């Protein structure tokens, strides 16, 4: 995991000090709300339905056990005993008082945390594959180039006031777990003739007018990646629209210019910037690599046992453990180790919410079993990245004590849902109640287990914070006569060959939407080949029309 340097700590504390002064001036009336609002947003503080919401940055989704304890303390002392994991791998607190925020930012700074780049028209906190550094299929660790870009973009005077927010995602593997094709800028690390480099995409995005990013650079040597990022940002900064909020993202610019013209502009900017182009030389790259605390793996990872070992004395339910170990373990590049998913999708629970006691307990488990390291995922879950297989039974027992033993990663009940109208100022409908009811229904019907890997994502409005466009089953909340309604979409996927889901239904009530999803899953199970064909493969084979009857209830 990344260890903040002294310089990082000084920058974070300086920002916290500036912010304390800004809050003092706002509360005393020296500063108006219009003057203060952009400043608080630059420090991750939004005003939502019930209170201020503080978004804490988790660069690349990774954090330490001690940082998690600090976040638990904030949840307990300044919020209402819980935090929320977002689809951008951050933490959010929903019940913050403005007058407490200087103390909170000080506390965050003390632990190398902050809320910088979590709001505003800047380069936002960069997201990467949550399996970074341990994935077996990884060609390069995406965190190092992400950190290089973070260092270069943080407070960059040229790119602090972009036309709109700018999100970057980076993958280091052929299999994408970062959704890089639907970000403003996406990077996939690849190898070419034995050299590590990057494939670079731009103009992707969800929200209004979703778009899949176009390839701008087929292969860039690592030393030039920042130069290409600079060129893309420079073109966007100069030509992106500032006159219309909904047309200000880079995807609109790319669509209006066309891929070829946009790429030419970027190439020209890249060439023009050559004399002063930032380069990432080997020494710099090595310095960044060293800033990440490398896990220490045992050469002989203790008495090799089968992955689904059930002999630990703490286990009282061997069958449940076996299922958990099978579903929640992630293949690790080091023999004898696994990554472990921790689901925040308890049946009937609120997706992504974790209470302060669970945070403390999970921090303890991370220290005991995962070298003190944790990751947030875009699917609102948590990963313990370096767990010895031999420790799985004891880890499971610990998770059971915390109520975090749900074994549903990647299944239909692993529902991604935005906060929706229960918290969010922008939402058109509530998302969480639908997620809760649906997860209960899936479990009760046995469909969750039977269907296997199916993604369901629920957004409460067109801003698409739950990424519903790239789900097998996407659900969009709409407001109809001041009541929750939902449109169902099918066929979305992130990944190198990303596809956007297509709208399949009119606006449905919550009950109708649940029934429609159940019918879609039943239909999928009934027509899949050999009981193993994946949801996306079935959709490709039968087409969207093949599911229309299930959506409408006519199948």
């Amino acid at each position: 995991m990344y260890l903040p340097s002294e310089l990082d700590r000084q920058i974070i504390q300086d920002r916290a000090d500036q912010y304390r002064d800004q809050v003092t001036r706002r509360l005393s009336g020296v500063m108006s709300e219009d003057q203060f609002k952009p400043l608080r947003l630059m420090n991750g503080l939004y005003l939502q339905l019930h209170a201020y919401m503080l978004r804490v940055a988790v660069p690349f989704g990774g954090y330490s056990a001690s940082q998690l304890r600090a976040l638990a303390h904030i949840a307990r002392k300044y919020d209402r005993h819980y935090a929320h994991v977002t689809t951008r791998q951050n933490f959010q607190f929903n019940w913050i008082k403005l007058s407490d925020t200087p103390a909170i930012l000080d506390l965050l700074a003390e632990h190398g945390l902050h809320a910088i780049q979590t709001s505003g028209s800047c380069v936002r906190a960069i997201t990467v594959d949550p399996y970074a550094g341990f994935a077996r299929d990884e060609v390069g660790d995406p965190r190092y180039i992400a950190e290089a870009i973070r260092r270069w973009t943080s407070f960059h005077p040229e790119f602090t006031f972009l036309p709109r927010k700018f999100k970057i995602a980076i993958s280091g593997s052929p299999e994408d777990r970062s959704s890089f094709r639907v970000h403003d800028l996406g990077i996939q690390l690849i190898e070419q003739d034995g050299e590590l480099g990057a494939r670079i995409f731009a103009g992707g995005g969800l929200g209004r007018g979703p778009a899949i990013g176009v390839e701008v650079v087929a292969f860039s040597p690592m030393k030039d990646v920042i130069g290409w990022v600079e060129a893309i940002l420079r073109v966007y900064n100069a030509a992106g629209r500032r006159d219309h909020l909904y047309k200000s993202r880079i995807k609109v610019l790319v669509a209006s210019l066309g891929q070829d013209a946009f790429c030419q502009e970027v190439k020209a900017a890249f060439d023009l910037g050559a004399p002063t182009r930032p380069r990432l030389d080997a020494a710099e790259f090595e310095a960044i690599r060293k800033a990440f605390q490398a896990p220490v793996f045992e050469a002989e990872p203790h008495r090799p046992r089968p992955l689904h070992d059930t002999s630990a004395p703490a286990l009282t339910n061997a069958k449940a453990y076996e299922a958990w170990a099978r579903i929640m373990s992630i293949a690790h590049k080091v023999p004898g180790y696994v990554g472990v998913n921790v689901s925040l999708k308890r049946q009937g629970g609120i997706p992504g919410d974790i209470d302060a006691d669970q945070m403390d307990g999970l921090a303890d488990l991370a220290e005991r079993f995962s070298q003190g390291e944790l990751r947030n995922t875009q699917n609102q879950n948590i990963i313990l990245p370096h767990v010895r297989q031999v420790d799985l039974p004891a880890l499971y027992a610990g998770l059971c004590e915390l109520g975090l033993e749900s074994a549903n990663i990647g299944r239909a009940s692993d529902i991604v849902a935005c906060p929706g109208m229960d918290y969010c100022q922008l939402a058109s409908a509530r998302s969480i109640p639908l997620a809760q009811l649906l997860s209960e229904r899936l479990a009760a019907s046995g469909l969750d287990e039977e269907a296997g890997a199916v993604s369901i994502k629920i957004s409460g409005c067109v801003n698409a914070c739950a990424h519903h466009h790239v789900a097998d089953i996407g659900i969009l909340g709409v407001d109809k006569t001041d009541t929750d309604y939902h449109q169902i979409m099918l066929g979305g996927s992130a990944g190198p060959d990303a596809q956007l889901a297509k709208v399949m239904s009119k606006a449905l009530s919550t009950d109708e939407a649940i029934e429609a999803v159940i019918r879609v899953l039943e239909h999928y199970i009934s027509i899949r080949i050999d009981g193993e064909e994946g949801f996306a493969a079935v959709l490709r084979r039968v087409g969207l029309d093949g599911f229309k009857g299930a959506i409408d209830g006519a199948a």
Partner: protein
Amino acid sequence: MGLTAPLIMLEGAALKIISANALKEGHPLWWTGAAWSRDIEMAVHLEPAKAQAVLDARLKADATLIASGELEDALNRRGETLRRQAIRAVGPTVRPDLHRVPEPEPMAFKKAA
């Protein structure tokens, strides 16, 4: 009923309430006509033009008490409090344990000039 009720609802929908968030704490507030209250039931329903004028005045006068201010429809077409406002008034529907317990008296901390 068939003729009268919809007309009443339409009139209701046209009226506005003035909502804000407390600057220091961030919690929602509604203008009662004389003060800010945490109780939406105390909100005064005003014609849009009048509501806008009051809001503009309050944003100036109460700059150190409120963080934002906006006009919302007082009622939806069914004659009910708008869902968003109802959720603000009580708390998230998915966390009844966090619902606001109203004080015996509405918290009015700023009298109108």
